[in-house]
């Protein structure tokens, strides 16, 4: 039911109603949820739903025309673009925040402070036989590895496999895959040999339970942080986070109202969701990109 | 060893049928129901085989015989209550005033309205006394100008009015067993049937309640035709005009089938039965 009886145009004053369907990345989900919550204070009659199907799942629905907005923790793939095209779904890509995929270990882990990309690859590549920390680095103690990683249906999984293992979806299989941050947090913090990776926010929220590991992408050990994520020096694991808005969606008053709000309040939204905020330049692009869609 | 060896069990003396229904009852000559070579099956099992008998108007006809000989089966065939048992089937002819009860276009609902039934255990509905009586007229769509009057009349006829007139709105389940059974009779009367079938109506009652029902039956036989199944031979002897004695026979295949052995006036059956098996049963030597 997408009635848009409200809003005749400009401003916040007009009362909107109807549904806004958002789906996709679990990483970006918190941003969209925060935006939805803040938006609800202004437009109580607009029903924003935020599904968490993972980036790929989100695009599938998005390109089917089932959703208005797709959350994504990686850029849309060519295959997905083709699907959208086939179904006549036009869209605009908006970067709404930055993220630094964070590698975490247990607080009891005193030895692993920095891991190189080859070391990470050795651990996580398909068919890896690395099952003990001392296989990662002979200086490390004899401590069995307990691995927690992204679920196969997530953009994080795609991003991580591409960045570390060099090929999307190429990943060892004998680890605990999860969409569910609780599992990674509790699992890694609960065992000395634990190792996991997820979005920076999740680390920040659980900084008291976990230890952050620096990553050496070739230029020395870098710790993920707001700054290193914004300037891209946290390589190769800093990444932008996207929302994709369809043209059919934007044609609906309530969707346009929501995205307008999303962009206008992006700082607040990012802060609420505890993400790494956009740089000034990124913000400029965001606004101009969106402007093109609404005009065209 | 000083225990004495058994002598054959003593015969029980014949009942002396000082029957209160002696003499030809009014209307007894007119046939109401007639069974012609009736056999009744439950699935493949032939429970009753080849029964011929006629039931006269305003008579009390008693069906007696040992347990399992098919008395209830025959009784239920008279108002098509057997229809309700999956697999039950009647062969032969059962006629009611000459009409075949099992003809295709006969309405079993109408049959049951005309031929009422009272059961072994009193089974009042869990409703008020009043509603119990009014139920039949209501469901059969009788045009009743004054239901209160009808209820009162039915209860009076069943000799229950005085006992319940002040608590018509109370649950029928609060009545005693004997009262409940009379209520069931009243309920049957209320739809003005012609025949009332009774399947061991007193077997769940104490002697005092039993004697009340027996008196009532006798009263009712002025206006209704009554068929009663009873286990109690004295009761048959006391109340009935005619008695049919059934027993189960084992056939060549070892299956048991109920058969009508003898059917005659009650007086004859209890004083001078034609069949040896009847005598043996009456005298308590078997069954």
């Amino acid at each position, binding site marked *: *039911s997408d009635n848009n009886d409200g809003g005749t145009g400009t401003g916040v004053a007009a009362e909107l109603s109807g*549904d806004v*369907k958002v*789906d996709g990345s679990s990483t970006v*989900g*918190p941003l*969209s*949820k*925060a935006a*939805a*919550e803040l938006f*609800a204070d202004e437009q109580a009659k607009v*029903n*924003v*739903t*935020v*599904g*968490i199907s993972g980036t790929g799942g989100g695009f599938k629905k998005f390109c089917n025309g089932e959703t208005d907005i797709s959350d994504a923790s990686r850029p849309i793939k060519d295959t997905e673009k083709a699907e959208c095209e086939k179904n006549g779904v036009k869209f605009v890509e908006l970067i709404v925040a930055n993220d630094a995929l964070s590698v975490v270990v247990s607080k009891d882990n005193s030895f692993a402070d920095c891991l190189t990309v080859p070391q990470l690859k050795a651990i996580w590549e398909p068919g890896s036989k690395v099952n003990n920390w001392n296989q990662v680095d002979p200086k490390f103690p004899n401590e069995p590895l307990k691995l927690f990683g992204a679920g196969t249906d997530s953009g994080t999984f795609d991003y991580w496999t591409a960045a570390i293992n060099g090929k999307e979806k190429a990943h060892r299989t004998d680890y605990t895959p999860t*969409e*569910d*941050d*609780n*599992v*990674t*947090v*509790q699992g890694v913090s609960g065992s000395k040999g634990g190792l996991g990776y997820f979005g920076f926010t*999740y680390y920040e*929220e*659980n900084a008291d339970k976990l230890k952050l590991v620096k990553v050496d992408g070739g230029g020395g050990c870098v710790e993920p942080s707001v700054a290193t994520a914004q300037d891209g020096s946290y390589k190769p694991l800093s990444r932008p986070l996207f929302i994709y808005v369809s043209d059919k969606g934007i044609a609906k008053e309530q969707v346009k109202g929501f995205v307008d709000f999303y962009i206008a309040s992006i700082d607040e939204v990012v802060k*609420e*969701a*505890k993400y790494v905020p956009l740089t000034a330049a990124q913000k400029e692009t965001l606004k101009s990109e969106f402007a093109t869609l609404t005009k065209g | 060893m000083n225990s004495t060896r058994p002598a054959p069990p003593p015969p029980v003396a014949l009942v002396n049928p000082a029957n209160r229904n002696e003499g030809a009852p009014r209307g007894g000559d007119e046939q109401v129901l007639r069974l012609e070579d009736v056999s009744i099956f439950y*699935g493949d099992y032939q429970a009753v085989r080849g029964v011929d008998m006629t039931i006269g108007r305003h008579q009390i006809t008693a069906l007696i015989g040992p347990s399992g000989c098919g008395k209830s089966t025959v009784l239920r065939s008279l*108002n098509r*209550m057997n229809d*309700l048992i*999956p*697999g039950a089937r009647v062969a032969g002819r059962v006629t009611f005033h000459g009409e075949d009860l099992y003809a295709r276009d006969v309405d079993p*609902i*109408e049959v*049951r*309205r005309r031929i*009422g*039934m*009272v*059961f072994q*255990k009193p*089974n*009042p*509905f*869990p409703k008020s006394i009043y509603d119990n009586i009014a*139920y*039949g007229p209501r*469901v*059969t769509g009788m045009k009743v100008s004054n239901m209160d009057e009808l209820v009162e009349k039915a209860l009076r006829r069943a000799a229950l009015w005085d006992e319940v007139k002040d608590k018509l709105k109370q649950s029928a*389940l609060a009545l005693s067993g004997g009262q409940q059974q009379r209520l*069931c009779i009243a*309920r*049957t009367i209320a*739809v003005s049937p012609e025949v009332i079938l009774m399947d061991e109506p007193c077997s769940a009652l104490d002697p005092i309640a039993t004697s009340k029902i027996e008196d009532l039956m006798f009263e009712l036989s002025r206006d209704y035709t009554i068929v009663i199944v009873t286990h109690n031979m004295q009761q048959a002897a006391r109340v009935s005009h005619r008695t049919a004695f059934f027993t189960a026979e084992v056939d060549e295949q070892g299956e048991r089938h109920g058969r009508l052995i003898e059917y005659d006036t009650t007086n004859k059956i209890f004083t001078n039965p034609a069949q040896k098996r009847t005598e043996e049963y009456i005298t308590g030597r078997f069954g």
Partner: protein
Amino acid sequence: MSTTSTPPAPHAANPRHRPSLSQRRSRPGEVLFKLALQFCLLVAFAFLVALIAFAVIKGWNRLDPRLWQEMPTGAASRVARAGVQSAITGTLWVIGLTAAICLPIGIASAIYLEEYADNTRWYNRLLELNIQNLAGVPSIVFGILGLGLIARVIGLGFTVITAAIVLSLLVLPVVIIASREALRAVPRSIRQASYALGATRWQTTWRQVLPAAVPGMSTGAILALSRALGEAAPLILLGAVTFIRFNPDSLLSSYTTLPIQIYNLIKEPQAEFQELAAAAIVLLLVILLVLNSAAILIRNKFQKRW
């Protein structure tokens, strides 16, 4: 003289050598066995108590009106003023609709099987067998049915009505089986009496059998609905795992339910979310407890009226 375990042959029974009865044998095996049995029950109840106590203690801070006055949140920072209102209303919608769908169908099926069907016919036996089997089909398979057939092929989508249809089909066997039992408990004699007065089948069913079976049926209905109320698995496949902070307003609304909301909350690592999950669990348990007690009360009150 003690009780020997070899009793005297009756022929030899000499009154003077008869052992006394007054030697209560101690039978430690008996006592142990009984203790073991009591232990079994105790374990079951201990878990029940532990589960409830754990949920209450963990959720204690959040057991206040916020639970039903506030909407869920996605942000840990806002969790202090969040609740599960949209899940509660979603549950009410879904369960209300489920009741409206499955009770009439279930009761009508039961009436057909008990009052009308000739159980010697193969198709009626098949029907019965089918219902028994359906009762054992895992709930997630009903979710697949909903996903593949109702949401996609029929095209009702991930909506309140899809969820209600799937849950209805899921608990339909429970309703049918319980209603049949209730009907069967109505004495045959009542039906016979009604037929003997010239009532038709439906008159007998409607005026005598159904009223007498209502208590038993409502017990079954309540238990079936409380099963539906707690069900999460099939709804996972039907789009309930969505962040929803509004109340459904039509059959085609998006929705979430209390068990699903609990599942979502469990997945969050922050202690505040876990507390909220525990509080929502307490709420769910209270609802179920009330329903269960009602069912038991009805059953005990109306049992055995004949």
